[in-house]
């Protein structure tokens, strides 16, 4: 059990290089608190797995250091780090039974039989593997094999952290949900530090207390699921989190006034003047937009399309060349394709060169 600190970590698969494009991970600093449930979220190829492998010691970073509490473990081999890691695809030992598979990590560390047996049986019950305990692992389904992989990760009770590398990819949706809540329960019960890599935002947001969003080898935001939703610090986070993602529209800014295509919106906060070359955008969640009758106040937009997805409707509207998504419970009383687009100004964010800027209360 330890706090894990990454200090100036950077990694390039082709060795040290002066070209920043060679780096799969670009200089990051982060501390994982002992006992935290973290999700590492980002699109494929953004360096999530690289980061995990650096923590577990399967990779030695090109630059920077890894600390467990105060001890520098950057050069320590995986076996001595006391880390559990579960991979995307099931890894099982073909010639062993399910019992032997689950007992393997304990057996390798010289634990006694009397200690191993009750632990294996308890864990097998938790994962629903108890009736297959004495079957050869290679005869089981992919689902069951992945459960064995999970089991081998969870069997040791004193690990520094458990790392999950998209472990539920091969599991069918019903079971996926069940296993995820089981992991959450295990986290509450035993207080392991858990780091869960995924590119699925629902998975990340339901699993974690804190979500780390990565994009092209960099951490773009660390925060609670709520913070990621309300105040994305980077336009990428805005796009990536939420379905559909945040509307991000070019605009110009003067104090508390935003101009979109010549139409004015008055915001709650004042903003400093920006350099004339800066890229200024306004970002607003589809959930905080609404449509009113054409004669009411708002931006005059044209409704292009309305999708009914059950609980709510998603409208796509256009203002000249710019398109917005609007999430509404009901589109009542609308006739024709004209409407007024109304902003919830308390939840409107301003981005300068893709980064969120803070305004001042008047």
């Amino acid at each position: 059990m330890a706090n894990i600190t990454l200090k100036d970590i950077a990694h390039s698969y082709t060795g040290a290089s002066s070209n920043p494009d060679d780096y799969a991970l670009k200089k990051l600093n982060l501390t994982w608190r002992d006992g935290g449930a973290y999700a590492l979220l980002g699109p494929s190829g953004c360096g999530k797995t690289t980061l995990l492998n650096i923590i577990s010691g399967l990779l030695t970073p090109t630059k920077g250091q890894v600390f467990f509490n105060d001890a520098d473990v950057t050069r320590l081999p995986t076996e001595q780090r006391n880390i559990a890691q579960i991979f995307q695809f099931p890894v099982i030992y073909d010639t062993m039974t399910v019992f032997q598979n689950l007992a393997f990590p304990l057996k390798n560390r010289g634990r006694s039989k009397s200690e191993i047996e009750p632990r294996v049986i308890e864990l097998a019950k938790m994962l629903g593997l108890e009736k297959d305990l004495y079957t050869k692992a290679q005869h089981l389904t992919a689902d069951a094999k992945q459960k064995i992989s999970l089991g081998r990760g969870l069997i040791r009770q004193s690990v520094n952290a458990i790392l999950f590398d998209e472990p539920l990819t091969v599991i069918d949706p019903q079971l996926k949900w069940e296993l995820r809540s089981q992991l959450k329960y295990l986290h509450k019960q035993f207080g392991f530090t858990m780091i869960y890599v995924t590119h699925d935002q629902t998975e990340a947001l339901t699993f974690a207390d804190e979500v780390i969003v990565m994009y092209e080898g960099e951490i773009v935001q660390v925060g609670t699921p709520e913070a990621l939703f309300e105040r994305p610090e980077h336009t990428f986070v805005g796009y990536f989190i939420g379905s559909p993602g945040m509307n991000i529209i070019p605009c110009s800014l003067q104090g508390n006034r935003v101009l979109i295509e010549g139409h004015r919106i008055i915001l709650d906060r004042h903003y400093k003047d920006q350099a004339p070359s800066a890229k200024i955008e306004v970002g607003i969640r589809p959930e905080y937009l609404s449509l009113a009758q054409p004669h009411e106040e708002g931006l005059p937009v044209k409704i292009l399309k309305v999708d009914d997805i059950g609980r709510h409707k998603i409208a796509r509207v256009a203002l000249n060349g710019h398109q917005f998504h609007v999430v509404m419970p009901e589109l009542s009383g609308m006739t024709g394709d004209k409407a007024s687009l109304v902003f919830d100004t308390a939840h409107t964010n301003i981005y300068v060169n893709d980064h969120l800027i803070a305004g001042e209360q008047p």
Partner: protein
Amino acid sequence: MIAKQINQKAWFMVLPVFLLVAFSAIIPLMTVVNYSFQDTFGSNQFFWVGMDWFRDLIHSERFHDAFLRQLAFSGIILAIEIPLGIIIALAMPRKGWGVPVCLISMALPLLIPWNVVGTIWQIFGRVDIGLLGHTLASLGFDYNYTQDPVAAWITIIIMDIWHWTSLVVLLSYAGLCSIPDAYYQAAKIDGASRIAVFRYIQLPKMQRVLLIAILLRFMDSFMIYTEPFVITGGGPGNSTTFMSIDLVKMAIGQFDLGPAAAMSLIYFLVILLLSYVFYTVMSNIGEESSKGGT
């Protein structure tokens, strides 16, 4: 009706294959079967002798000796080449410039014709001019494969190891390369030792290619002819007269067609039987406790 016509045409389609197999395998084999039940004194006159040749052969000491020599030879070279091949494959690099270098140098012995290999070692081992034989002799070793049966056996075994271990290496290496990285990573996480990685990951994943390696090496070594014929000609005495050498002596040297035919049939059945046993045993390894024993 239509279906039946198509069926009849299909017979014509397989006819070429049938003819080919008939001429290349079935008819020669049946000729041998035919010879094995008859005796001849030349001038194409044959007399029916029933099972006599088989009975004689099974009780003949000459056949027993050749058979035991053959079993011992195959046993020894399998016991050496399979583990040695696995060890070399494990030591070979997985990436970088070393891979093509290793693969090509491993493949070289396999490209040399059998009788050339025999000749190379025949000269290599000669006491008067051979590098190996002369060096050993001048170092004071009593090495002479033309007179000492032990030296003859050692020479032939080392030659076979030199010639064929590469095959085991290449097959094992292919098996090793097909293991995904995640297995090695998981083993590190699980704290597995080097031996455990071999025992629980590499060996099970190599099982199929090893089965092929063992079958190929067994069949080839059990039928070995050219190299010992070139090096020792079956001597000194009869000490390196393996079954195929004995068979050729009987059939062409003594022109005993009947006994030779009987012997080749037994030889054929033994190889078939042992290959079947190897295959069955190895395919069943790791399957026995699959159905939930406790």
